[in-house]
């Protein structure tokens, strides 16, 4: 039951929306809010107003697999259609379109496009550890692992773009032996526009948990533009 004191309800609503109301108090307030009335109304007031605090928040484009998972969870695949002549024609046209797209995608997958930037990381012995290639038009990052890179138990090597005047931006965990080929996110592409150097740090397995390097870089090498 919602307390009768409107000032108390408003104070709790402000702390609930801000996020500092925690534990049992938060759960109790959630029930009041769900019941509607003053608690819900004051929450809407604070939600509208406090959103301004998010002014400096940076949007980040999520990876493609998130949308695929949402579609699967909601079972949003298009429904099966009844057959008719027009539908068959439409279906044939879609099949052709799909084949065309698939061919294009396959071609793009096989050919990453023009090489834009390259960096080479070698061990002190001179053995190649990684060759890093950025393909501008397809937005792909291809890393070839060399013999110089050795697995460090419980750790991974992480690659960072060092944009001028900004914080390092992770370009992902580096392969040890073998190669990797992945699509850059928009944030990574933007960072690379202004990046003249990349760094490698040794992080816990799976990469830095904070999104920023947690250790001193093992290597800092130039990222050269290929012209």
């Amino acid at each position, binding site marked *: 039951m919602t307390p009768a004191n409107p000032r108390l309800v*408003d*104070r709790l609503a*402000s702390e609930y*929306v*801000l*996020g*500092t109301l*925690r*534990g049992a108090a*938060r759960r109790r307030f959630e029930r009041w809010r769900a019941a509607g009335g003053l608690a819900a109304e004051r*929450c*809407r*007031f604070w*939600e*509208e*107003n*406090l*959103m*301004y*605090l*998010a*002014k*400096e*928040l*940076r*949007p*980040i*484009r*999520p990876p493609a*697999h*998130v*949308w695929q998972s*949402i*579609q699967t*969870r*909601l079972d*949003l695949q*298009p429904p099966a259609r009844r057959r008719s002549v027009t539908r068959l024609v439409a279906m044939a046209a879609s099949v052709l379109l799909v084949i065309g797209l698939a061919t294009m995608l396959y071609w793009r997958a096989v050919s990453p496009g*023009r090489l*834009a*930037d390259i960096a080479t990381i070698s061990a002190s012995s001179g053995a190649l550890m990684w060759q890093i290639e*950025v393909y*501008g*038009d397809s*937005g792909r990052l291809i890393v070839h692992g060399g013999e110089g890179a050795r697995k460090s138990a419980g750790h991974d090597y992480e690659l960072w773009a060092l944009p*001028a*005047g*900004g914080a390092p931006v992770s370009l992902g965990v580096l392969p040890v032996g073998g190669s990797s080929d992945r699509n850059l996110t*928009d944030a990574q*592409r*933007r960072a*690379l*526009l*202004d*990046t*003249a150097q990349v760094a490698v740090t040794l992080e816990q397995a799976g990469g830095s*948990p*904070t*999104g*920023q390097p947690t250790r001193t870089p093992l290597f800092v090498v130039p990222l050269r533009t290929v012209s």
Partner: protein
Amino acid sequence: MATMSKNPRLPIAMSLPTQSSPALEERLVGLLDRCAATDPAALRELYELASPVLFGCLVRILRRRALAEEALQDVFVSIWQRAGQFRAERGRPMVWMMSIARYRAIDLLRHERAAPALVPELPERADLTEESREDLSEWLPAGVLERCLALLSDSQRRCLELAYVGGASHEDISRVTGNPLGTVKSWIRRGLQSLRQCLDS
């Protein structure tokens, strides 16, 4: 952006659409209405428009990408299921979606034992690079709160930002800022009180 473009071959993809705020809002309301009528194409469009902002918010609170990705799925599943409950006359669509995202993230923090104990510093305004102009301003209301926030002390404002944007608890803020828990609680309480008075006036 043009001045910092080292390599013109790399395309620049902006995360935010360029419409003015009222047009954007109208579009979001229309999409939510269509979601309520179970139109999957509308959800896809809504996701294209709103997911970068919501994901940015989730990453900031949850700190870990994998967890934030999972939370983003939950958020869009909720948006789809609850779109019929959205009422444009009661508030703006982005506020409604952002609240779903923030509450989900705070909820997950509660269950996450490994929740990070430290919240990094928020960037100071002067330190923001040109890139940071790609901010949320077009999603935000006219500056009523900005005027009211200007009335707060720096400590009060900073505590509110750490809590709202970073999902920090009283204890987190006390640790990060090095101030006693009681002081932090009172800054937040008084900060909210001042905002309430200013917004009501």
